[in-house]
């Protein structure tokens, strides 16, 4: 596939196999990713504060810039200027290293995330595998942070994080496998291209079991990001601030940035696997090609990912926190067997009807129907549960 950004390739080729060429290539690619991660962090934090505020009948940041748009920027620069504290009895090396590792784990994932047809830095043929591998590095950083802080709350947070992240790797990996089975490739680019065409060729519609796989993926990814209701490692009401209790200033900001970066990564991966990546679902729009086509694709991809990020935030500000043993129950008793069963079903369907896209139309109709019925369904479930536990029912 021809790469539009040939000047970068030129730089890569300029160096050839030499060390300095390698360094130059890294520098050229690192700059835009760094910018993008920071931008995602800025926007996502602002969105989070605004969304939470509007959920809670508040306004959220209003005074710093129009509608508080500059709020996160101000926060970031302020955190840069704060005193950098290392607790007296902390393990200084690990303490300094931990945020870097956590951030690196997220940061590296961006190398293989596709933005548009040609807008991918490295089109690894094992891209999905790569993301899963570096993603779990984060747990190491978190454990380092918790251990080195020499604070019991931090240690609690770190151990919880390790338990949770390692357990949820398993159902997450199985759902990733389901995506791989559908696409027949591990490359994220090729996986997206397998969903080219009308909206029903997206995997979530094409395969009747993929929507369930998506729900499991989304749940597991929430746990991977340590977002509510799985935010036990930094549970504010229990563990003060969890593993980053002792972190201040820039180091804390790095943790923060990594968290939002990770949210974007899992959302983008979900978009690639289930929602057709950079495809809009309308072939005419997707066939433009060239630089405009790539830009439109990148816009669609980022928008889709940010919508998923917003859903994560919506869940965070609605649900209470789950207890550790319940978190493990959900993972090992429900998600894992479900994911295994669904993987088999997905594979079975894929074996019977390998290239069948039109089934997606049926699924879309069914989903719209279910969505319309959902309101009454939820009401029914609620009234059933209210009968069961005899809650007060009032005339509204």
């Amino acid at each position, binding site marked *: 596939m021809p790469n539009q950004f040939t000047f970068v390739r030129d730089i890569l080729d300029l160096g050839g196999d030499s060390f300095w060429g390698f360094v130059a290539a890294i520098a050229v690619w690192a700059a835009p990713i760094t910018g993008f991660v920071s931008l995602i962090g800025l926007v996502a934090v602002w969105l989070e504060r605004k969304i939470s505020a509007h959920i809670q009948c508040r306004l959220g940041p209003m005074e710093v810039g129009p509608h508080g748009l500059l709020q996160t920027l101000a926060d970031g620069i302020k955190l840069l*200027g704060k005193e950098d504290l290392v607790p007296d009895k902390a393990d200084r090396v690990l303490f300094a290293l931990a945020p870097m590792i956590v951030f690196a784990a997220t940061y590296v994932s961006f190398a293989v995330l596709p933005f548009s047809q040609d807008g991918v830095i490295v089109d690894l043929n094992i891209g999905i595998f790569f993301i899963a591998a570096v993603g779990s590095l984060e747990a190491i950083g978190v454990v380092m942070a918790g251990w080195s802080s020499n604070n019991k709350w931090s240690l609690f947070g770190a151990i919880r994080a390790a338990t949770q992240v390692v357990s949820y790797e398993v159902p997450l990996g199985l759902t990733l496998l389901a995506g791989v089975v559908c696409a027949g490739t591990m490359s994220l680019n090729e996986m997206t291209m397998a969903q080219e065409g009308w909206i029903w060729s997206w995997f979530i519609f094409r395969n009747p079991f993929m929507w369930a796989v998506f729900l499991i993926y989304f749940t597991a990814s929430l746990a991977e990001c340590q977002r509510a209701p799985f935010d036990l490692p930094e549970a504010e009401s229990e563990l003060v601030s969890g593993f980053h*209790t*002792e972190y201040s200033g820039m180091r804390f900001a790095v943790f923060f940035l990594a968290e939002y970066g990770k949210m974007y990564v899992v959302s983008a991966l979900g978009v690639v696997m289930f929602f057709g990546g950079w495809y809009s679902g309308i072939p005419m729009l997707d066939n433009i090609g060239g630089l405009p086509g790539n830009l439109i694709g990148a816009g669609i991809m980022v928008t889709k990912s940010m919508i998923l990020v917003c859903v994560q935030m919506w869940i965070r500000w609605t649900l209470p926190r789950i207890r550790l043993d319940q978190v493990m129950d959900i993972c090992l008793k429900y998600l894992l067997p479900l994911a295994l069963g669904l993987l088999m079903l997905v594979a079975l369907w894929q074996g019977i009807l390998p290239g069948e896209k039109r089934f997606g139309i049926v699924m879309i109709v069914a989903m719209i129907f279910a969505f319309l019925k959902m309101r009454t369904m939820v009401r029914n479930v609620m009234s059933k549960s209210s009968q069961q536990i005899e809650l007060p029912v009032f005339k509204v």
Partner: protein
Amino acid sequence: MVGPMSVPLRLPRLRKRTSPKAMASPANIQEINFNTDAATRDNVLISSLDKVLNWTRKSSVWPMTFGLACCAIEMMATGASNYDIDRFGSGPFRATPRQADLMIVAGTVSLKMAPRVKLLWEQMPEPKYCIAMGACTISGGPYIKYGYHVLKGVDRLIPVDVYIPGCPPRPEALLEGLFRIQEKMKYERILDRTREGLRPEVLVD
């Protein structure tokens, strides 16, 4: 006017608390005179950088979740929907002192609690600010006369920037206190160290 680059750009330095006694001594005034020549003081780059840094600080004052008594309920009300301190960028109440900029001492400090208040203050990273919220933290309030176990004013323990009277102060009063802190931050010298820590009365032109 000398160009901006003639002054070496230094890393942000922390606010230094110099005791007034040391500032007033003649030797110090000499030193200040030596440093404050017109060239460095009117430096455009540094003072505008200062403005930006001050703006960021005043726009994101993160308070610590530190409720002691009745005033804490009003502090919670200030963070809640009706008053919404988040509008001014002070929404994230941090549970740990390490990530907070502002300590709102909300409620009566007893003598049993006093060492812990001091510890928490010392755990906060610079630059840090303190609001004494309510009569009890200002002077002991209603407990000043017969309250054997009550600290008579939190300024006996830690430096206080803004006092908010009331028992308890209304949420609007707390917001006003926050604005006063922001006002204070607006005129701080961070990079322009020639003026750092100077009080108006010893600033010799």
